[in-house]
């Protein structure tokens, strides 16, 4: 799992590619979010389109990131969820709790 980070219109976009699963991917995601926060980012997007698999640890990491960023007064939103990622979040009712947007345009627009 690799996470690339880029900026667009003052928003930090994290792009994980591969598996967000226990032991490797979850740690990489945590580090990327932590890195963004330390660089002063308060509006963060995660482009989920490259995520092939996510397990409960990966989901826990998303929830933890959401809570951390929100508690610091920032915003963390997800977009472009592959169907299986959307399904697994749905099952534990996180689709409604987390901020989820369809695509990058909609996600960027949500911060304007």
């Amino acid at each position, binding site marked *: 799992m690799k996470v690339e980070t880029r900026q667009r219109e003052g928003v930090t976009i994290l792009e994980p590619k591969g598996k967000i*699963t226990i*032991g490797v991917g979850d740690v990489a995601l945590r580090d990327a979010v932590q890195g963004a926060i330390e660089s002063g980012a308060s509006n963060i997007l995660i482009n989920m389109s490259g995520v092939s698999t996510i397990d*409960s640890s990966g989901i826990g990491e998303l*929830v*933890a990131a959401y809570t951390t960023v929100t508690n610091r007064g920032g915003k963390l939103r997800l977009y472009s969820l592959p169907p299986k990622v959307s399904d697994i979040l749905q099952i*534990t009712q996180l689709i409604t709790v987390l901020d989820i947007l369809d695509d990058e345009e909609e996600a960027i627009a949500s911060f304007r």
Partner: protein
Amino acid sequence: MGEEVAEVQLSIDSQFENIELVQAVLDASLERLEFDEDSRYWIGIAVREAVANAIKHGNRQDPEKQVGIGLRVVEDTVVIQVQDEGAGFDPTQVGNPLDPENLLKPDGRGIFYMNRFMDAIEYNFGTGGGTLVTMRKRIGSGDPRSGEEDSE
């Protein structure tokens, strides 16, 4: 009981990377059965959760301890067992991740997913310690996301 048509046993060290070995055997085994791609994917997630729990909570990542995975097909049902050398736990004490106070907790969803993606899961604990979880999924027993049998 029913005729057993195939059996595979795998034993791995308690390292999370080894979950990929389990996934590889599982994929190669399920490929021969008539599960659709979605079912195979969700069975894979359930098995990953069970093995992750065995490594993390059971064996506490002790490299000396092994996780055993058994895979067999009995008639139209795949039966997957995951065994660790840990202290066991009380499944009735595991909270519901859908409870409002749990919704934003970073953990506590693994067993819930296992239940949702398989037809049945069952825990057994050895007298000398160790957790054995047995998971079953029948071919064609519906879309696991719906949590219902034969919903298709």
